[in-house]
């Protein structure tokens, strides 16, 4: 990829993806997400960076309707009916083993954040919508999914084909965010 015009095209595409991604809360009813799309998304997402290359993320993909319904019962932040959920967990034992106390206290959250954004952008690029959910009962969802004790359920990503795409909430202007030294 040496051609600078190719790079500019790819950069423009990525900027567009970042700016047009929305949180989707209304999905097309009865339309499932093909397994191969989820697999392609996670195959690429695992190339995300992580502190000390810990790769402490673990993905539980839920498509069983009864299990989705049960999870939703304990997820007040989950609005709308999605056909698939990617439950992103952190293997805290691995995080500690590879990255020490920093790994299991702080770094794992950054790593999960990075991989979740990667997943959301990949899904958007494939015509899917996502809702990144953090308002749920961690204990209840872990119980429902029989999550190992050494894993922490960090985020639920609801995935489906968007029925409605909302307007974006306001963003702070760049000059309020950046300090140049």
């Amino acid at each position, binding site marked *: 990829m040496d051609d600078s015009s190719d790079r500019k095209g790819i950069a423009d595409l990525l900027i567009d993806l970042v700016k047009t991604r929305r949180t989707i809360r209304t999905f097309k009813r009865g339309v499932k997400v093909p397994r191969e799309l989820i697999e392609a998304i996670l195959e690429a997402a695992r190339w995300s960076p992580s502190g000390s290359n810990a790769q402490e993320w673990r993905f539980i993909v839920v498509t069983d309707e009864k299990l989705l*319904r049960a999870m*939703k*019962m*304990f*997820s*007040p*932040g989950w*609005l709308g009916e999605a056909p698939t959920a990617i439950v992103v967990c952190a293997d805290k034992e691995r995080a500690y083993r590879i990255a020490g106390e920093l790994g299991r206290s702080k770094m794992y959250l950054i790593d999960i954040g990075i991989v979740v954004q990667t997943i959301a952008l990949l899904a958007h690029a494939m015509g899917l919508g996502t809702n990144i959910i953090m*308002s*749920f*009962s961690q*204990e*209840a969802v872990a119980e429902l999914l029989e999550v190992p004790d050494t894993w922490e359920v960090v985020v639920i990503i609801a995935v489906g084909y968007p029925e409605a795409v*909302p*307007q974006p*909430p*306001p963003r702070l202007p760049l000059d309020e965010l950046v300090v140049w030294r």
Partner: protein
Amino acid sequence: MEVDEEERVRIYEFVAYLVSSARGLLVEPQVYGPFRCLEAVSRFVRLLDQLGIKDAYLDELKKKIDEGKYLLLTNEEEFRKFVVRLNVELAQEVRNVLNL
């Protein structure tokens, strides 16, 4: 009142929404609380409807809530005013219902 299995699950869904909201609100932003309360009203009215209990005022209230609740995401000040307004309107309806 007898309920079938599906209706029982729907009741549990509503209960679980409130219980898990209580859990989350221990640590979530304060303003999520009012949102959860309004969302609970919307879900409750839907549940009543599914159980065959109809009320035109509550249907209208649900519609208003569903249209206004996402102000939380775009304009918190307007969301707060919306919550206050709903309270006033509900009080007016309660006056009618109780013949005050």
